């Protein structure tokens, strides 16, 4: 084991040269996280830039909802409002994805995930980071992570739109109400996870009651804070579950739109 004297170690610390003395597989978690995030980024980028196959009645891909460009596919009753004219040359997904992307990029869980897995700051507890200096989240661009609450507000609005999309899923291909398919089930699971992730956000917890000093004077907010706190304890699991469900919903719509599969109707 390498224990040569560290050249830059302060004189009075234990002069252990090795970056760490851990003997477990500490690299597994950051490597798996990086692989999973890269896989999602690759898939989401392909789908977001493709500008195609995002609508198969009655389902719209969550990557393209709400669809705010003139060039959006017509969706009967769907959340497509042409706020952006035909001058917008890119995929309409890019107009809206900036908000959920910003929400997840500034999320307290994802920050831990990418600081550890991509920036190695630190890669794992007790494992030295490779950087010569460290300024944390005090300077640009990382100071922008403090804008998390604004992305939370925007994402809550988008979650409302996705809820509306899920309700629209109770139609059939001919837009007749009172029907349900496997896609509807998938969208139902997805919207539950999206809301659970959104509400488990630490900024949401703070808004509910975190900034209060006397809970006893605000019983309703205290109750809300307590509920959100329970969800916050599962923020990591919800972050992953909702990310996967969003990807699966989009993939399902893509497969329907390209006629690879058909939506099995339950009733």
């Amino acid at each position, binding site marked *: *084991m390498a224990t*040569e*004297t560290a050249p830059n170690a302060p004189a*009075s610390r234990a002069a252990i040269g090795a970056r760490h*003395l851990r003997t477990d597989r500490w690299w597994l978690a950051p490597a798996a996280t990086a692989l999973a995030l890269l896989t999602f980024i690759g898939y989401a980028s392909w789908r977001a830039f493709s500008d195609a196959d995002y609508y198969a009645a009655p389902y719209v891909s969550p990557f393209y909802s709400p669809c705010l460009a003139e060039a959006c596919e017509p969706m009967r009753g769907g959340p497509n409002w042409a706020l952006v004219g035909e001058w917008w040359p890119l995929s309409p997904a890019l107009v809206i994805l900036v908000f959920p992307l910003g929400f997840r990029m500034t999320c307290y869980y994802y920050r831990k995930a990418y600081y550890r897995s991509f920036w190695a700051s630190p890669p794992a507890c007790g494992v*030295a980071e490779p950087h010569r200096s*460290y300024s944390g989240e005090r300077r640009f661009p990382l*100071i922008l992570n403090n804008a998390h609450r604004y992305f939370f507000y925007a994402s809550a609005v988008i979650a409302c739109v996705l809820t509306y999309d899920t309700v629209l899923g109770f139609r059939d291909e001919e837009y007749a109400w009172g029907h349900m398919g496997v896609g509807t089930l998938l969208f139902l699971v997805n919207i539950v996870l999206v809301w659970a992730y959104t509400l488990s956000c630490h900024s949401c917890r703070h808004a509910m009651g975190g900034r209060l*000093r006397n809970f006893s004077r605000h019983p309703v907010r205290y109750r809300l804070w307590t509920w959100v706190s329970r969800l916050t304890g599962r923020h990591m699991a919800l972050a992953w579950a909702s990310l996967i469900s969003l990807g699966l919903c989009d993939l399902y719509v893509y497969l329907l739109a390209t006629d690879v599969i058909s939506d099995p109707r339950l009733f």
Partner: protein
Amino acid sequence: MSDSTDDPTGGPTDDPRAEATADGGTGAGAGPPRRARLRIWRGDGPSGRLTDYTVDAHEGEVVLDLIHRVQATLAPDLAVRWNCKAGKCGSCSAEINGRPRLLCMTRMSLFAPDEVLTVTPMRTFPVIRDLVTDVGFNYAKAREIPAFVPPRGLGPGEYRMSQEDVARSQEFRKCIECFLCQDVCHVVRDHEENKESFAGPRFLMRAAELDTHPLDAAGERGLDRARDAQKEHGLGFCNITKCCTEVCPESIRITDNALIPLKERAVDRAYDPLVWLGSRIRRRRRDD
């Protein structure tokens, strides 16, 4: 000293006494003891080195038991700080196989029978000798956090608080000040230069504890604890990678319940114009 080696690399050495059989205690468990190999940091910071010892390990024992057995049988001058042996005094903090842990709360059954345990002092702090570190940095940081400000008009014994109001800060009162969170935090562990401007998770937690205390009257004295945490105590250094929470022997959710709420409170003051405006209006009304 048993670490009478001149190995300049600080690598493991063969101490004749260390290799001798050592059974310095009565077996804690019913089964036969197994032989456990330890590599322990001996000496001071710059010139210390890892030294090998082999001692018996009985069923149910913790790493501190083995350190004591080494001390009793092989290396009587081995320095180790300990006190309660029950995970409540926070004295025996060290690193076992590179992970910050309490020696007294780390059971030997956690490790494979043939695994060599490397026991080193906390890496973030200066070594006094062997496993004993100078944790004075933490006491200096503790003094920088303004103390609880008693409310006006209430004397000792007259404080009345609802349980839901004190529950948050009560969690932080479980802290035993073992300083493992301070040790593992990469902000100071990997960057000695940050020690001056970063209080560390333990003392940011202290700031959060006081900031959520229902009777703390710091605001009336012109103190803004969340702002001070950001401006004076280096809250912005924290990138919430949760190592402090991972190593806490009291299972305090330091990141989720102290650091992130404190960051959110700092955002209220520094980056949220709506909250800032609302607090200004409320303050003006109160003043009126």
